[in-house]
């Protein structure tokens, strides 16, 4: 029964729970047992609480037994990235500065999913304050890629991708600021989506770069990702950047993966030199596959994408240097050196030096530099102009194609330690995903095969206009179905941690 439950999609599990064939308690216990079995090796979770999870599951089972109408994912377990506040468990954002902190309120994503009856298994590991592409910047140690434990699971939401890929959770949440959902989804063989900016609430998400941070879903298939996307999305008056518009019909799109007549643009600038050959091979095969399914494929040029990475590494650090000023050792979190003789400023500086890891310090310093007088126009100002150019490139492209596609990442999962000492090499992992964050439109990564040279997953990135998230799911569903029929099974069934 255990393996059977783990193999079910979240949609199937939710249906079985609603039909009374399976209890949420049974499903939750199965996943908790799986965590106990494999997380010593995968290290996806920072916090998992068996009793608390089972209590939530019992409550959902009673709601269902009482005839309450709950959503399609009621009773289904989920893992939350440790950047979403949760009143009943600690929230650290992967940082020492928040070790042991219990938030006084729930994030909107957390509370909406509680109301929808999802059961929180625990909190997943992440690069500290979501800054990184590997989880190696977590103060609590790196997570491991279930396809190959010597490799990274991507980042910053790498605990979430590792958990779902290792069947420790059917669903997980993440946040995507420069690719932190799509990149880990790609390198772990999962589906991950970055909704339109403002489509999912940032309330209760520990801020990294506020104009870019976007909560989104991880799942093992396109429909499950869409169901989760829909469950937490929609306008939130508590987030002033939340979009007051209907949630795009992502679930319907995920059920109808029809790309007949769809105009698909291949981004010229996200192809070619610097990409792993096996990644490009699977990408081009997938483009041909879409053409075979009736899509009209054209090449599209977005020249300013070449400068997106540079603009991002000015804008995101600038915003983070401002956001992380709140960690001042006064109201919550770590306090160091308060011996009665030191001033508040000295205590603050000592605490921040001890509580933040090297990458967070690097970005705070970089942002402080980019915003400082004399450099502001040359760096932050120029980066904001590039942001306008990137939006214009997207607007021009979406004037004649419905979606854009590219590889999600330039390479498959790299080895733990390989890029840890070279910040610029690490930043390149987000080369293809960053333009979408700067422009605020929607994107999704869907598995498109294994690279022949290393047998590791490759992701296809599908980008769509603002509030046209459903198009990314439509293409994702088409690719998923075509790939499954070509291979004869789901990609994830070939992972070392398949069940």
């Amino acid at each position, binding site marked *: 029964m255990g393996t059977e439950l783990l193999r079910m999609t979240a949609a199937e599990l939710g249906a079985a729970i609603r039909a009374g064939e399976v209890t949420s308690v049974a499903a939750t216990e199965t996943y908790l047992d799986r965590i106990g079995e494999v997380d010593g090796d995968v290290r996806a979770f920072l916090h998992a609480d068996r009793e608390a999870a089972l209590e939530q599951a019992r409550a959902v089972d009673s709601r269902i037994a009482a005839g309450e109408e709950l959503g399609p994912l009621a009773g289904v377990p989920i893992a939350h990235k440790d950047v979403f506040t949760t009143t009943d468990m600690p929230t650290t954002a992967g940082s020492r500065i928040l070790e042991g902190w219990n938030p006084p309120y729930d994030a909107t994503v957390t509370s909406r999913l509680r109301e929808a009856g999802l059961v929180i298994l625990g909190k997943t590991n992440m690069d500290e304050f979501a800054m990184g592409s590997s989880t190696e910047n977590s103060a609590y140690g790196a997570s491991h890629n279930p396809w190959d434990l010597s490799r990274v699971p991507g980042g910053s939401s790498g605990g979430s991708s590792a958990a779902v890929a290792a069947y420790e959770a059917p669903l997980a949440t993440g946040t995507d600021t420069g690719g932190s959902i799509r990149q880990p989804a790609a390198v772990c063989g999962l589906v991950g989506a970055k909704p339109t900016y403002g489509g999912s609430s940032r309330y209760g998400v520990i801020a990294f770069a506020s104009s870019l941070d976007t909560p989104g879903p991880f799942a093992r298939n396109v429909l499950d990702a869409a169901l989760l996307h829909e469950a937490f999305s929609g306008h939130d008056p508590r987030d002033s950047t939340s979009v007051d518009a209907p949630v795009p019909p992502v679930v319907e799109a995920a059920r109808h993966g029809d790309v007949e007549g769809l105009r698909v643009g291949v981004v010229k600038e996200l192809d070619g030199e610097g990409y792993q050959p096996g990644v490009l091979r699977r990408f081009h095969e997938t483009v041909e596959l879409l053409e075979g399914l009736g899509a009209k494929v054209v090449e599209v040029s977005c020249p300013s994408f070449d400068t997106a990475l540079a*603009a991002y590494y000015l804008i995101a650090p600038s915003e983070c240097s401002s956001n992380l000023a709140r960690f001042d050792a006064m109201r919550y979190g770590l306090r160091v050196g308060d011996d009665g003789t030191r001033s508040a400023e000295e205590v603050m500086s000592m605490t921040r030096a001890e509580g933040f890891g090297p990458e967070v310090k690097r970005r705070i310093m970089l942002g402080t530099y980019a915003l400082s007088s004399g450099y502001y126009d040359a760096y932050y100002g120029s*980066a904001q102009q590039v942001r306008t150019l990137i939006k214009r490139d997207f607007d021009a492209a979406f004037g004649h194609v419905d979606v854009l596609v590219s590889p999600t990442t330039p390479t498959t999962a790299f080895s733990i330690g390989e890029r840890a000492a070279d910040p610029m090499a690490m930043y390149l992992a987000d080369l293809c995903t960053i333009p979408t964050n700067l422009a605020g439109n929607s994107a999704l990564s869907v598995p498109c095969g294994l690279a022949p040279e290393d047998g590791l997953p490759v992701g296809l990135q599908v980008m769509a206009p603002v509030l046209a998230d459903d198009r990314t799911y439509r293409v994702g569903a088409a690719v998923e179905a075509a790939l499954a029929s070509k291979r004869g099974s789901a990609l994830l069934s070939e992972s070392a941690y398949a069940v």
Partner: protein
Amino acid sequence: MSAITRDEVAHLARLSRLALHDDELDQLAAQLDVIISAVAKVQEVAQGDIPPSSHALPLTNVYRPDETHQGLDPDQALAGAPAVEDQRFRVPRILGEEA
């Protein structure tokens, strides 16, 4: 020529309220130099009268109804505080000794 000097890095650390050790300053000076030289690429593209974008979507003056809501009670607000005294956050001195 390097894009950033070690003295500038030490100044940034003070502005950032980061009490960094000498070896951290040395390491950061080298790393920031590489990163700043790479990101300076934006200056080649951002020429002329291109308007800057601070946000992805053009939302301005977003207000919510002026209604009262239940906030945190003092115990909840102080629950994560490093030090508490008389229902307040206790902080180290913020003024000089002479004050």
